[in-house]
Structures are given as structure tokens and as C-alpha cells.
């Protein structure tokens, strides 16, 4: 039987790096899953984790992206919308518990189709503190092009630390 949840590419950083890029994504699957374990060297208690499609850019603030997300901090829940930025999650930063990485999963269905591309994601911020974030989001890239590349990066002010990893999987339906 054909493998349906298949690893396409994987990167684990051995040093501080601005971003992780998956290019030349095969167009032979139905959906994509990106699993990220990450930490930023940005000063403070959390940092952005962003993805953009079909570009090598590591700069957010791109038109054509919108999202809505739920977020909990451990003491409060909130919701927010974001537009013309990137698919935006959160990760631990330099002010959080050391040697601790956040976990994020992005699910991208029908990535080769001719509709606008939607993303479902869940991220956890991870720190031993009274404030730690979980974010659940739905994002939209208003572009009908097939996704051939994914750029994963943090805040424009900072980089990923060594040990950050990202894995790209392809899913094939029946």
C-alpha cells in the first residue's frame, strides 16, 4: 500500500539561523503538514513564528495573508485577526525557560489545487511560567497557485536558535 504520511524534507539547525526553507516541494501529494520545534533568540517572553509560501523571504508584512486565531495565556483567552502579514504563530524566546522549544503544526490541505490556500495550525509556546501561550488558528493565503515552497522564520528582529527543527510531510488521500 502506498505510504500516505510521508516525510518530504527535514531540517535541524546546528547554529543560529534566520529561517528554514523548503523548496521544490513535490506536487504529488494532496495535503502538507509542517511540524516545527523552535525557539527564538529574541529578547522577551515570546516571539513570532511565521510561514510564507512560494518565496524565500523571511520578512513578514506580505499582502494576501489573513488569519483568525484563538489564544490562551493560562489566565485569559482571547481571539484576534491578522491581515497582510504571514501565517503567524508564536514560539519561546530568550526570556523563557532555557532549553525549551515550542511546538507548532501547520496543516495545509489541497496545496496543489486551484483554490486559495488555507492553513489550520496549533502552536504551544512552552515555558515554565504562569504565562504560557497556546494558539489555534485558521489562516488563508489568497493565492490560487500551487504551493511549491515554504519559508519558515521568526520575528524580523531575531533568529532561530540551534536545535530548532522543521519537518515537512506529504499526505495522500485514498
Amino acid at each position, binding site marked *: *500500500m502506498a*505510504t*500516505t*504520511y510521508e516525510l518530504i524534507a527535514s531540517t535541524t539547525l546546528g547554529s543560529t539561523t534566520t529561517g528554514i526553507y523548503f523548496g521544490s516541494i513535490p506536487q504529488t501529494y*494532496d*495535503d502538507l503538514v509542517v511540524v516545527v520545534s523552535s525557539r527564538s533568540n529574541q529578547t522577551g517572553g515570546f516571539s513570532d513564528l511565521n510561514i510564507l509560501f512560494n518565496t524565500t523571504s523571511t520578512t513578514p508584512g506580505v499582502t494576501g495573508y*489573513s*488569519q*483568525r*486565531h*484563538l489564544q490562551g495565556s493560562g489566565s485569559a*483567552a482571547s*481571539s484576534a*485577526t491578522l491581515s497582510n502579514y504571514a501565517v503567524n504563530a508564536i514560539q519561546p524566546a530568550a526570556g523563557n525557560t532555557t532549553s525549551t522549544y515550542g511546538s507548532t503544526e501547520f*496543516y495545509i*490541505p*489541497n496545496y496543489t489545487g486551484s*483554490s*486559495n490556500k*488555507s*492553513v*489550520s495550525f*496549533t502552536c504551544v509556546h512552552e515555558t515554565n511560567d504562569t504565562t504560557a501561550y497556546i494558539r*489555534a*488558528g*485558521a*489562516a*488563508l493565503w489568497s493565492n490560487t497557485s500551487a504551493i511549491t515552497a515554504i519559508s519558515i522564520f521568526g520575528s524580523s528582529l531575531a533568529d532561530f536558535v540551534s536545535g530548532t527543527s522543521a519537518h515537512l510531510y506529504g*499526505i*495522500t*488521500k*485514498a
Partner: protein
Amino acid sequence: MATTYEPIASQTLGASAASVTFSSIPGTYTDLVLVCMIKSTGAASSSGGTARFNTDSGSNYSHTILYDVGSIRGANNDRVRMFGDIPTGAFANAIVQIMSYANTNVNKTFLSNYGEAGSGISRIVGLWRSTAAITTVTLYSNDGGADSFASGSTFSLYGVKAA
């Protein structure tokens, strides 16, 4: 290497449909995963998408929903909320994990991750008070209203095996 995440069946609607059914689901996996891209035909549904298992229409379902403006609890319903309000203009995503679906010692539960950037996101936990193995899943775009799933909506069912 043993395959642990296997496609069971998929459907892509070539026309609108009031419901979508997966039947004769084999009992050989541990969990099921249902992945959907869905859109509604009519005026935006105000009651959200629902499901029934094994065509059970009794008052055997309950759910808790966290969504972007609050939380909802439902109980003793004749179908269970599985999706949020389904939009008409864009496709919403849903990833539903149905745990221990073939275990005849437990009632059946699922977790649904649902969202569309323009209309809202939901996280839903649902319960079917039956110990029967799930062999059929029927999905509806509403809670008994006239809306249907729009053409182009896709539904993919996967089986997941534990170690």
C-alpha cells in the same frame, strides 16, 4: 515498515450534497482522522456542521465548543456538532480525530480542529454515548436546516494504528 496512517476513503463533491457518508469503515485501526475542506451552499449556517455515527438519530450526542467569541455546551442532542459555522464564500478546514472508534468498551469521543480565516475558528470535543464500534460516519452542513455542502467540498478519511 508498517504503514500507520492509511487512507480509507475520500470524496470530492461534484455537486452540492445535503450529507456525506463514510460507511463500511473497517474496524482494524485504533483511531480515525477525518480531513475536510468544506463550504456551504445557502445563507451562512448559523448552527454549524454536525455528524451522526452509525445513523443513530437518538438523543445520544453532546459537545463542548471553544470558538472565537465564547464557548458552547450541548447535550442530549440527536446529532453532534463537529464543525463551526460553515462559510459560503471560502472553504473551511476541519481535522477531526476520532479516538478508539472500534473499541466496544468505551463511548466514542472526538476532537475537531475547525477554522476559516474569514468566518471563525472552533475547537470541539464531541461525545457519542454508545459503545458500538463506529462503522458509519454521516456529516451534515447544518443542524437540520436546508443548507448543503457545496460542490468542491472534499472529505478524506484515514485510519491510524497504534504501535
